[in-house]
């Protein structure tokens, strides 16, 4: 279980990015962090990844406190961040140095097959489209078989069609090993499509505004009325989080149904 325990983050320049974030993510659960710009959602993700340290509080995975990048936590960034001097296969195998070559090759080939890129192994990253590069970036994180996968607005730079196809790819990949996933997004539809829970953050300083369970069966139909209703609830909470001026009041999660009245 991924436990985020009373995290605060203040930068040396005085920016108060996060205030007492408290969040437990169950094993295999997909949680979406939703919020307007400046609400600290990326900061929170970087803290879970161990790339940054909280000013107070701690993040732990199965009781193991995360103080630096952790072998059981993978991350996918907004940009694919492939190493341009490595082939696609070498990029995917980047974190698999500890495995014998045969096993490494096997995992890479399986991964390429699963994201529909078999035959692309020997290509250079520059030869890939944006969507293909992001697929490689996702499997690069997944071949290390992390217990938790963090995604920082992974599809925001892609066109709508590519995004939809990658969201399906991601769910397919998730289904194979069911890692815990934390997804940062500003796209409410994406949150409702993928997540078991949407956490709405409120800016300045970043706090949890609402914790909304999304209990739709998978695969989810974007056109169903239930989907539209869930979207509306999250959207309302998001609107509420942005129009709520006082930082003192809403320190804790409130119920989503109250969202409309803010």
């Amino acid at each position, binding site marked *: 279980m991924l436990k985020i325990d009373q995290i605060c983050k203040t930068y040396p320049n005085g920016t108060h990015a996060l205030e007492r974030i408290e969040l437990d993510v169950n094993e295999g659960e997909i949680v979406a962090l939703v919020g307007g710009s400046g609400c600290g959602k990326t900061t929170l993700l970087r803290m879970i990844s161990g*790339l940054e340290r909280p000013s107070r509080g701690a993040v732990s995975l199965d009781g193991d406190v995360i103080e630096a*990048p952790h072998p059981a936590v*993978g991350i996918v960034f907004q*940009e694919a*961040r492939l190493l*341009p*001097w490595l082939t696609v296969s070498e990029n995917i195998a*980047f*974190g698999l140095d500890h495995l014998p070559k045969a096993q490494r090759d096997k995992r890479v080939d399986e991964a390429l097959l699963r994201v529909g890129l078999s035959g692309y192994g020997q290509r250079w990253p520059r030869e890939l489209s944006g969507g293909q590069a992001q697929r490689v970036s996702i499997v690069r994180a997944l071949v290390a078989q992390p217990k938790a996968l963090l995604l920082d607005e992974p599809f925001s730079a892609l066109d709508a069609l590519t995004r939809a196809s990658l969201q399906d790819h991601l769910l397919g990949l998730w289904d194979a090993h069911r890692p815990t996933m934390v997804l940062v997004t500003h796209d409410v539809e994406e949150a409702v499509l993928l997540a078991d829970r949407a956490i709405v953050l409120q800016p300045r300083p970043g706090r949890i505004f609402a914790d909304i369970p999304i209990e739709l069966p998978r695969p989810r139909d974007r056109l169903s009325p239930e989907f539209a209703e869930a979207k509306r609830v999250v959207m309302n909470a998001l609107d509420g989080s942005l129009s709520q001026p006082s930082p003192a009041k809403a320190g804790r999660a409130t119920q989503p149904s109250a969202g409309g009245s803010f």
Partner: protein
Amino acid sequence: MSEAGTLDRETTASARPTGARFAVFSSAFTVGLILPLATALLYEAAFRLGLVQARLLPPPSRIIATLWEMAVTGELATHVIATSLRVLIGFGIGSAVGMALGAVTGSSAAARRFLDPTLQALRAIPSLAWVPLFILWLGIFEGSKIALIAVGVFFPVYLGVMGAIANVDRKIVEVGRVFRLSRSALARRVLLPAILPDSIIAIRSGLGLGFMFVVAAELMGASEGLGYLLLDGQQLGKPDQILAAIIAFAVIGKLGDWLIVIASKPFLSWQDTHQRGA
């Protein structure tokens, strides 16, 4: 630094991949030959027709004859080897020290604050100003010449490598951190490949400056070397010998640059540049 800047641009322009398609390479090569060859032929014709006095500017045929003569007697080889060795040793020292110090100041802000101001101040001194001091310290023979060449090579390599390291994308370095690479693994698997393209440009401009300074070093007194041929040709009034030496300089300079390009090519095939396939 304007000299190095110009060199830089020239070497970049000639960095276009050549091996991919021989036909493309050879046609580009042929087009480039038209102007010098036509000029040479016109001048030769003017000379044969008695239209020009060739005392100060000998016709191509005479320059070729002089080169041939020096090649046959082995004189040319002696001078080319002497010059190449000086450049090679000076370039080796200058680029090794340049890369080492560039790596240190590029990767550590503390080292940069401590070292870089001094090195930048030294860079502001025209390298030729060191000549009298080097001769006093190291004598008139090889030591002072090699020192001068090394100084000339050092600065472009140092600046290029330092800049390359400082400019490595934080986002790429973060990928290395996420996969928990050790410091040495991060340097080897991420930083080194990331700085390679810029470093090779820096090394190439360093070699260009090495050739510039070997001429200066040999002009200040040498008993062999292409620079000696230049000076000897001036003192004895042999312009054909001067031009032969200049041509030899061009050939070995280009050859040295080409060797670096060829040697680095397998490591740079991943690059995404606008010149690809040109």
